[in-house]
């Protein structure tokens, strides 16, 4: 187990380093003139030379890459004469358009993304798992077919279309909700939840479809196993068999997938955040891409990659914790 953990940790670190190199090459080595991209539209020649110097772009590539790495682990200073901007570790870059380190931009957006992802995850787990169990218990009958049909529809629908349809129904037609405006949880919990309802459901509907299918398959598989047959023969109540024993076998893949999805949606809910105007990480990467604010895009790409890698590792570890039969080697 310890050896596995060490190896897994080492491979995670290697993967992260590869990613750092990849992001560096894409954003700083490949473009002909990164200063133009970093500065954004409408920068003059003098400004460009200053940025070149400030970012160290006038130095050889390997020195630049070293500074890039150095920034991530110990922080770095961007200086041109008297104008010094310090970027503390982990320095993911400096956004000249916002005049802020990328990390603090990310910090401002993180609560929104966390709110969105956590709420949606609770919803999709509840909806998906219960629909899947229901479907498995009524296999082949009307409930099962209805659940399956709805989940094909929910899974197939592009998320910005289903979100838009929800918006039209609940804001435009029924007038039950206003167009969402993000309110921090600490300001007003009720308004926070009310405004996030539509984004939560939009994400949850698409995700619940996957979880329903996964639960249904897992449940059917577990229910046909021998030990369940034995429980039935003992005369255990059906509720107990399903709720305690069959559920355990079913939950394992669901928990691992949740860990992965959480990491992914935290940084990758671009479509939902853009549709509902939520100022989260996904919206930040889209806006920065549209404004050609490259350090932010590069920093977020790194964060996204890291989130996925970490979530993947967490998912594998959880797998072993939940299912004792799994031996990690």
């Amino acid at each position: 187990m310890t050896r596995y953990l060490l190896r897994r940790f080492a491979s995670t670190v290697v993967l992260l380093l590869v990613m750092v190199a990849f992001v560096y090459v894409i954003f700083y080595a490949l473009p002909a003139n990164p200063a133009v991209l970093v500065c954004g539209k409408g920068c003059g020649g003098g400004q460009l030379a200053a940025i070149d110097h400030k970012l160290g772009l006038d130095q050889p590539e390997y020195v630049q890459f070293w500074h890039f790495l150095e920034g991530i682990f110990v922080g770095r200073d961007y200086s041109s004469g008297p104008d010094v901007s310090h970027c503390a570790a982990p320095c993911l870059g400096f956004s000249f358009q916002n005049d802020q380190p990328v990390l603090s931009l990310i910090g401002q957006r993180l609560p929104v993304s966390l709110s969105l992802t956590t709420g949606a995850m609770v919803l999709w787990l509840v909806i998906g798992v219960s629909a899947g169990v229901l479907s498995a218990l009524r296999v082949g009958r009307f409930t099962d077919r209805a659940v399956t049909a709805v989940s094909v529809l929910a899974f197939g629908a592009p998320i910005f279309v289903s979100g838009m349809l929800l918006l039209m129904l609940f804001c435009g037609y029924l007038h039950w909700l206003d167009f969402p405006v993000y309110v921090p949880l600490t300001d007003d919990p009720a308004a926070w939840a009310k405004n996030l309802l539509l984004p939560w459901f939009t994400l949850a509907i698409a995700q619940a479809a996957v979880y329903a299918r996964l639960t249904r398959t897992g449940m059917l598989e577990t229910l046909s196993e021998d030990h369940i047959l034995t429980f039935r023969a003992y005369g255990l109540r059906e509720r107990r068999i399903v709720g305690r024993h069959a559920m355990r076998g079913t939950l394992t893949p669901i928990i691992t997938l949740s860990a992965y999805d959480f990491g992914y949606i935290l940084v990758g809910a671009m479509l939902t955040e853009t549709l509902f105007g939520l100022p989260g990480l996904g919206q930040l990467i889209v806006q920065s891409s549209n404004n050609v604010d490259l350090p932010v895009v590069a920093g977020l790409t790194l964060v996204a990659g890291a989130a996925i890698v970490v979530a993947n590792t967490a998912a594998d570890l959880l797998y072993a914790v939940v299912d004792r039969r799994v031996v990690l080697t």
Partner: protein
Amino acid sequence: MTAELITEAGAAPEAPARGRQVRRRLYADRMAMAGLVIAVVMVVAALAAPLLVHLEGQDATTYHPELLDSARGGVPRGSFGGAGGAHWLGVEPTTGRDLFARALGGARISFLVAFGTLIVQILLGVGIGLAAGLGGKVADAFLGRLIDLAISFPQLIFAIALLAIVPGTFPRPILLMMVIGLFGWGGTARLVRGQVLSLRTRDYVSAARLSGASRTRIALREILPGISAPLVTYAALLLPNNMISEAGLSFLGIGVRPPASSWGQMLSTATTWFQADPTYVLVPGLLLLVNVLAFTVLADGLRTALDPKAPSLRGGRR
């Protein structure tokens, strides 16, 4: 020589019978047939777009301010977004451009990018999958890791990142195909690698190897035909996915640029109009939804027809 005799003896007599069986199963699948009809109608409409738009008597770029109600912020006059005999699906708010023409333009972009991306994905996926499966231990270890990476990485984020650094003058649809394809070949490669690993121990492949066939020849003549069925079904499933990716990127404002139209781009401008002019939202939204579902159901039907034992999207008995 020996190899040819063996494969031909093995494959030839059953092939036509199998094709007929697959077609019969597909025809019997009502959902899949509905999907097929919708898909064919839409593709034909997209191909014949200039003709249809000419028939309607409109074009995608002319502004029609006279059809808009300026007192209400530029909403089209009349019900259903100004739909009628002259403008079959109504007009766009604030500009008055014909929605039918723009929607068909969106269909062309959607299919063009989806099919183009598919070609990139298949070429990369099959190439890397074959190389991993047949290339020996080191190649497999390296490529296998690469495939894992390609699958687990957030496709859309990397696509956005790449799109940010490419100059705006590069033709957008081609760029989209390359970017979506570049991050979307992982699934195909994994499928191909898995199939290759199970096929390469078969007798007919050993026979080909013993008779001195080169590795490339084995890959192309012996293995590739054997994996065509799962590859076709997988490719069919990729198509609707690619349509969603293109629409998504265009929705985010990073995909197709105006004046070209795309369903995703139309939807993003429609976001603010969902109360005043619902038709404007519904036209691109439902087109995208219906097409994606049609292609998905068709692909699923194809999979069940080719391999009735495979688990279907639509559940089934199990």
